[in-house]
């Protein structure tokens, strides 16, 4: 039999039983759609994190108070973390600054503040920073205006959302905004970072450390302690080595050992590794759920395929009586089931991609806490994923068809013809 005629016969069977074919592929459609949509969320996370991390640069060290466990693995989120133990002090910062291989070191305090603009009130986070140094360790750009300078004690640099959407009226450069009832002048507006690393959220305001003390950003007892110390290492030095020095010096300054260490050190590398692990877990979890549904879809296709071939036993007997060889019958049914799998996979990819783009267009998942706080997560459907899904569907189809096809092919023509 010619191969194109085998395809024609298979297609005839599929198309002349549209309902049956539809039901057969339903499971695989839903399974593939679920896989595409769910995995696209994981891959979207991965993509955006990779972008964030590459903009961060490789020579950053973050020191935050509290042990790693106490900060639940998100210690690097500095400004957003609500650590209780304010154990990083001016004395720590001074010690760090004299370690060789360090370009800059600066401390940041942070806390929540009330904002008032154009008689409208709002809540936000504020960071008290060292003007002239903070912007050098941050990887944040300005949308307009300038960074803080030592000469304007009441200047403020505002996050992108604070400028454009927090208040009914846009906050422009030179506007006056009240922070904890004290008047500040807006000197700069940050670019939207979507940023979650380094504590420079679109929702926060940046003021000088001096003003932070003025408005009681942190309680008076904690005035000389920092929420985060940022360190940038020199070009030629090894960041991991430098972070090792920092750890040694701080331990001896705090009289602590590895067991009761009361601060956490993160480098770009450890952050990347940690975020990678978290996202890997999320992707694995989503992928696992999707794989289960794909498996169920595969069982579904196998089940309907089996019934469908059983029902056609008599027709297969007719084909045999007309001279069709076992091998051609086997081929015909395999092509049929592989085609069904392919169709299911293609429709599934379509709906999965659709679902994925809907997820990303309605703003995606915005975790309330953690490194991705407030960030809309985009989705990402990779070509590899699509090809994998299609290939998998074809294989599931073919494997499902294998057993009933062999059974049908090996029947004696009379037995097949007698089947009702």
């Amino acid at each position, binding site marked *: 039999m010619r191969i194109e005629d085998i395809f024609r016969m298979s297609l005839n069977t599929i198309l002349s039983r549209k309902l049956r074919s539809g039901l057969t592929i339903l499971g695989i459609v839903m399974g593939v759609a679920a896989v595409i949509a769910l995995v696209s969320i994981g891959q979207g996370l991965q993509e955006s994190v990779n972008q964030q991390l590459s903009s961060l640069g490789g020579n950053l060290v973050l020191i935050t108070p509290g042990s790693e466990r106490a900060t639940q693995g998100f210690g690097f989120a500095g400004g957003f973390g609500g650590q209780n133990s304010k154990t990083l002090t001016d004395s720590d910062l001074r010690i760090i600054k004299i370690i060789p291989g360090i370009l800059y070191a600066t401390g940041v305090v942070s806390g929540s503040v009330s904002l008032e603009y154009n008689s409208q009130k709002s809540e936000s986070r504020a960071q008290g920073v060292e003007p002239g140094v903070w912007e050098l360790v941050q990887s944040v750009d300005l949308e307009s205006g300038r960074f803080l300078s030592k000469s304007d004690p009441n200047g403020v640099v505002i996050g992108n959302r604070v400028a454009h959407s927090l208040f009914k009226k846009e906050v422009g450069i030179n506007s006056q905004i009240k922070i904890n009832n004290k008047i500040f002048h807006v000197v700069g507006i940050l670019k939207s970072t979507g940023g979650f690393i380094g504590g420079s959220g679109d929702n926060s305001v940046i003021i000088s450390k001096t003003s932070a003390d003025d408005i009681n950003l942190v309680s008076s007892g904690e005035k000389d302690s920092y929420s985060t110390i940022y360190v940038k290492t020199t070009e030629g030095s090894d960041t991991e080595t430098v972070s090792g020095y920092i750890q040694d010096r701080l331990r001896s300054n705090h009289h602590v050992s590895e067991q009761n260490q009361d601060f956490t050190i993160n480098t770009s590398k450890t952050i990347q590794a940690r975020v990678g692990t978290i996202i890997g877990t999320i992707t694995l979890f989503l992928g696992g759920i999707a794989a289960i549904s794909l498996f169920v879809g595969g069982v579904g296709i196998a089940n309907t395929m089996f019934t469908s071939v059983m029902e056609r036993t008599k027709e297969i007997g007719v084909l045999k009586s007309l*001279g069709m060889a076992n091998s051609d019958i086997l081929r015909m049914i395999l092509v049929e089931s592989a085609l069904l799998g392919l169709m299911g996979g293609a429709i599934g990819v379509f709906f999965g991609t659709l679902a994925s783009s809907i997820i990303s267009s309605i703003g995606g998942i915005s975790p309330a806490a953690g490194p991705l706080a407030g960030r809309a997560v985009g989705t990402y459907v990779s070509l590899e994923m699509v090809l994998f899904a299609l290939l998998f569907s074809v294989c599931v189809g073919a494997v499902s068809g294998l057993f009933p096809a062999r059974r049908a092919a090996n029947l004696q023509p009379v037995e097949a013809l007698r089947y009702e």
Partner: protein
Amino acid sequence: MDSVISLENVGKVYRNGGVDTPALSSINLKIGKGDFASIMGPSGSGKSTLLHIIGALDKPSSGKVIIDGKEVSKLKEPEIAKLRGEKIGFVFQFFNLYPTLTALENVELPMVIAGKEKKERVKRAKELLEMVGLKEKANSFPSQLSGGQKQRVAIARALANNPLFVLADEPTGNLDSKSGKDIIDILENLNKKEGKTVVIITHDQSIASHSKHIIRIEDGRIVGGAK
């Protein structure tokens, strides 16, 4: 006379879950080229079983079946399939048309299976449908045809690869007498005008009386008429 079908000492026992049903025993039979043979006998006597064995649709439990000079049991599966497709035309009591193909496509089917080219197939299928008087029903599906029409399509299909012989198992069993007569006329014409070998199972004495050769079966044995 050359024999196109030859059975030597053929026996058939159906085995179903330990229960043996003997259906045929010691069948010796020769059917020559251009023969028109009727198989007659009471219900359950083994007529269909015999025809299935002649048509290579079933295997005998013992004995030899020689078709066109080849011993069937010595052939491999693909060769037996080829034999069925190209040397034998089968017409069933219940038509057995392929339900999702049109009349024309049904007639094409044996040629599709034999790997013939599309153009050649369609031409031959159209001629055959015309011969059985169903030219205008070429694009109808089996479900849109009457019993007599279905059986005429089935005959056209059986002839598609110009087989050595045509086997028909009670081809008129499900038809009214008028349609039945049309079918018999077609088969008789084939035999007379083209010299096609025909073997037919029938209960109809008048059909049998036209035959050159009557094979009577009782209890799985030939009781008369075999040459």
